């Protein structure tokens, strides 16, 4: 079977449908008799609702129904939950104010859901929404996170707008370490707020069947089973057995499609209210900006202490994180367990203390966005290390090397809870330095200077924790769900295989990668393997795709199910060849009796399992196995990215002259796909560092960057081509030895680029390094030099 197994650069099988316009995204689906929903959103950031008069809208042409929060309240609709309880440093659970799909008393951000209009056409629904009369008392908006605690209260049960004040690490030990330091570097950092901006806007169709009393929900979800669980168990109080969630092709997510939102909840609920007609909603981009969960948004003060030899002695981090107006599904975990636990980075820093305060503001909810906490942690660690090197006159690469955890120190217990199973950081550093020609930088800088340009180089030696697990551990830390994955591998009688996986691709190419794994494992043709995902009606169970977990966790479940298939097949093969089961060997799709030339092909065994005329006693017919896999630990991808920039001091424009990435993802199934994931991740990280920024008006809370005219999305001409390589230290605790690659670029890139830009400028600036900001910094430095 040429070019179809593990390690092959196989072009993706899903591409043909996407390239010919035959992809099937949620908005491409139209159900018979469907009605259209439009949400009237709050035009102000903070207001107490006095009345919502829907009478005129209800009698407008084509209107089927108008619903408000009162209708949902009367019907017993619950609150959208946050699935991770963070215990604060005083032992109390975080403040979890209710988050109703349609507001009941107050609107808390611009875009909050005030009413839902359902009509025969979308145009009629929009026209009718204009007729709804809102009477509200506007309240002062809380926008600035550093002032949130002293501002007017957003939720009755969250005094000072504080969600939690949490800590990790030994504060006294860190103080002791700092007292002995030869040098301490201090930085104030802003991790700018981002809008994920998957190109496919969110969409949903809710459909209730009055005959079977079953619901079908079509949704742009990264995790349909989890959406079903949240809808059923928390919000709508429905039996899961009566709800099917289908997430067809999903056009990107980057985290923003993990969460359960108001809109799909409301469409599902409303379909029954209007007698079973399907209710469809599709966001326009403006709505996406207003109401998709945003990412990042931290303000941090951090300090790193080192001894006279340059060894890190301790780190202190004080972060304020924005939760937005309500807690999105996993918001609380992002600046805590996905952030502070990564502050050791690739280094042997012996003691670390982090304090994180999460606050509510009158802005859209903030939750996991590509990297989720880990880009923020890497930004803290790698900016501190770089600036420390500058302040102490050390080479930034060598300072990193000196402090790396060495290969013989694994498994390595960090001072911030995680235990890294394996890693080997120097080969990635060496390869990256060689690729960028680190030694030749001085000459390139001189050449740039001769042209009147500023040149800088910046490193980022990141680590991430992927495949969040194990369930028992995350449960003890407050997670409300298990973090396993499941798979069913089913041989059909004719020898083809259907694989039902709970992971759900939204661009990652699972249909190809997973088929490669199964073809190799079972020794059957790649083309005979079909991957089924994204439908709770076809897949037994699942937890979905986020946190770079699909291959490490979902792929491991598939391997386990394949192992069960092989185990059962050996019994059948032994019977057919009249041999002892213990003597049966399996390799490349053939079962052989050890030491003989007797063999049976996998397909023959599968046929026998379904036509069991000559069959071992006590063995069930069929060849269809399900496995659940609960990881033993996170996986720890790591690597080194190096950015080199050239800045024009006259325009402030930063040109990325070169970018190299050397990543250790463990074993790689499909290098073509992995490289694509790295490219995309880097682009998102570069976007954050260079141009993207979410701006709310500080007084009114209006979103000022609410369209592609105002929010700078990275375009093709913002980038060079990237040079991407890998090193391999295989994960020790999953059967494929894989670690995950989806977020690495977004985690590594912002620090690498800002290290390069500040190296060129010689002064600190915050992200995004827009031309204006860079120009001001460059001019002030030139002025200083002139004086």
């Amino acid at each position: 079977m040429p070019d179809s197994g593990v390690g092959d650069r196989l072009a993706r099988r899903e591409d043909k449908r996407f390239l010919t316009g035959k992809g099937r995204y949620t908005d491409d689906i139209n159900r018979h008799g469907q009605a259209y929903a439009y949400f009237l959103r709050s035009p102000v950031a903070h207001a107490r609702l006095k009345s919502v008069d829907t009478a005129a809208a209800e009698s407008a042409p084509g209107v089927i129904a108008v619903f408000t929060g009162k209708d949902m309240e009367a019907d017993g609709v619950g609150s959208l939950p946050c699935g991770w309880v963070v215990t604060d440093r005083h032992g109390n659970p975080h403040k979890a104010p209710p988050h109703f799909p349609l507001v009941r008393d107050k609107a808390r951000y611009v875009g909050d859901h005030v009413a839902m209009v359902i009509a025969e056409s979308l145009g009629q629904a929009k026209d009718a929404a204009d007729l709804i009369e809102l009477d509200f008392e506007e309240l002062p908006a809380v926008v600035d996170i550093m002032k949130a605690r002293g501002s007017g209260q957003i939720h009755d049960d969250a005094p000072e707008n504080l969600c939690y004040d949490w800590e990790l690490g030994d504060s006294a030990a860190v103080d002791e370490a700092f007292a002995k330091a030869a040098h301490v570097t201090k930085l104030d950092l802003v991790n700018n707020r981002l809008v994920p901006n998957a190109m496919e806007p969110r969409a949903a169709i809710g459909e209730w069947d009055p005959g079977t009393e079953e619901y079908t929900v079509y949704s742009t979800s990264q995790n349909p089973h989890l959406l079903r669980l949240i809808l059923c168990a928390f919000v709508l109080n429905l039996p899961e057995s009566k709800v099917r969630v289908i997430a067809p092709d999903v056009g990107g997510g980057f985290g923003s499609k993990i969460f359960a939102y108001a809109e799909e909840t409301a469409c599902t609920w409303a379909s029954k209210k209007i007698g079973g007609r399907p209710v469809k909603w599709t966001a326009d981009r403006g709505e996406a900006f207003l109401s998709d969960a945003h990412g990042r948004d931290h303000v941090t003060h951090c300090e790193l202490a080192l001894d006279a030899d340059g060894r890190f002695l301790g780190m202190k981090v004080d972060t304020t994180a924005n939760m937005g107006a309500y807690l999105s599904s996993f918001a609380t975990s992002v600046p805590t367990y996905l952030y502070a636990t990564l502050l050791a980075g690739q280094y042997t820093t012996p003691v670390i203390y982090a304090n994180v305060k999460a606050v509510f503001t009158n802005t859209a909810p903030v939750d996991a966005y590509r990297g989720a906490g880990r880009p923020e942690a890497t930004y803290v660690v790698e900016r501190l290390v770089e600036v420390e090197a500058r302040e102490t006159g050390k080479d930034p690469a060598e300072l990193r090397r000196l402090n790396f955890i060495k290969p013989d120190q694994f498994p390595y217990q960090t001072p911030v809870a995680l235990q890294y199973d394996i890693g080997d950081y120097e080969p990635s550093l060496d390869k990256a330095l060689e690729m960028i020609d680190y030694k030749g930088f001085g000459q390139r800088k001189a050449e740039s200077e001769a042209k009147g340009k500023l040149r800088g180089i910046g490193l980022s030696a990141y680590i991430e924790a992927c495949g969040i697990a194990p369930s028992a551990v995350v449960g003890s830390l407050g997670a409300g769900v298990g973090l396993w994955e499941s798979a069913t591998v089913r041989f059909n009688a004719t020898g083809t295989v259907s694989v039902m996986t709970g992971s759900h691709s939204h661009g990652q190419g699972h249909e190809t990668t997973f088929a490669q794994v199964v073809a190799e494992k079972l020794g059957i043709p790649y083309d005979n393997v079909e991957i089924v995902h994204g439908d709770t009606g076809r897949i037994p169970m699942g937890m979905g795709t986020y946190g770079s977990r699909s291959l490490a966790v979902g792929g491991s479940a598939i391997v386990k199910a394949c192992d069960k298939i092989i185990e059962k097949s050996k019994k059948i093969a032994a019977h057919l060849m009249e041999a002892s089961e213990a003597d049966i060997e399996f390799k490349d799709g053939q079962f052989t009796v050890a030491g003989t030339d007797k063999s049976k092909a996998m397909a023959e065994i599968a046929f026998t399992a379904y036509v069991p005329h000559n069959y071992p006693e006590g063995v069930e017919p069929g060849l269809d196995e399900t496995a659940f896999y609960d990881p033993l630990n996170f996986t720890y991808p790591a690597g080194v990215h190096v950015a080199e920039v050239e800045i024009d001091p006259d325009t402030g424009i930063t040109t990325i002259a070169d970018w190299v990435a050397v990543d250790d993802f463990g074993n790689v199934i499909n290098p073509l796909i992995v490289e694509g994931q790295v490219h995309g991740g880097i682009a998102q990280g570069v976007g954050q560092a260079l141009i993207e920024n979410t701006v709310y008006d500080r007084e009114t809370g209006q979103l000022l960057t609410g369209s592609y005219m105002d929010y700078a999305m990275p375009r093709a001409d913002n980038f060079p081509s990237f040079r991407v390589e890998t090193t391999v230290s295989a994960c020790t605790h999953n059967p494929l030895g894989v670690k995950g690659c989806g977020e690495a670029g977004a985690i590594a890139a912002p620090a690498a680029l800002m290290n390069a830009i500040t190296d060129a400028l010689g002064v600190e600036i915050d992200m995004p390094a827009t031309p204006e900001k860079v120009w001001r910094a460059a001019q002030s430095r030139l002025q200083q030099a002139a004086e």
Partner: protein
Amino acid sequence: MLTVSMTVNGKQVSKEVEPRTLLVQFLREQLGLTGTHVGCDTSQCGACVVHLDGTSVKACTLLAAQAEGAEVTTIEGLAQNGELHPMQAAFKEHHGLQCGFCTPGMVMSAVDLLKHNADPSDREIREWLQGNICRCTGYHNIVKAIQAAAQTMRG
């Protein structure tokens, strides 16, 4: 309501539409050609690019009525006799797409680029694509795919 007639992917079509109907709505909702996507509302993202009389246009920025009498080609009309267009084939070969949502517009735009410039530099490709946003690929493999298609099409 008004009647609009045009040729779409070689077929003559004629439909009654509301005057405010955009070309992209006409294609998606009335002709069922859902390969043309809507990714924004400000004519920025390019997911809706189709060809109008052989030139790339954003179908969200034209009324259906403005396409009266025109020849429209959508992503569904690009492959001929079941054979992928060289641009489609190159995108597959070089992994120029991930989630696939921007892809139809990206491919239609790239095909038009090569009509103007059969041998573009990487920089020219990147500048041409300013009107097409991709959030997944970082554009690296898109540029590579367009270079490969250009080479194939030059023969």
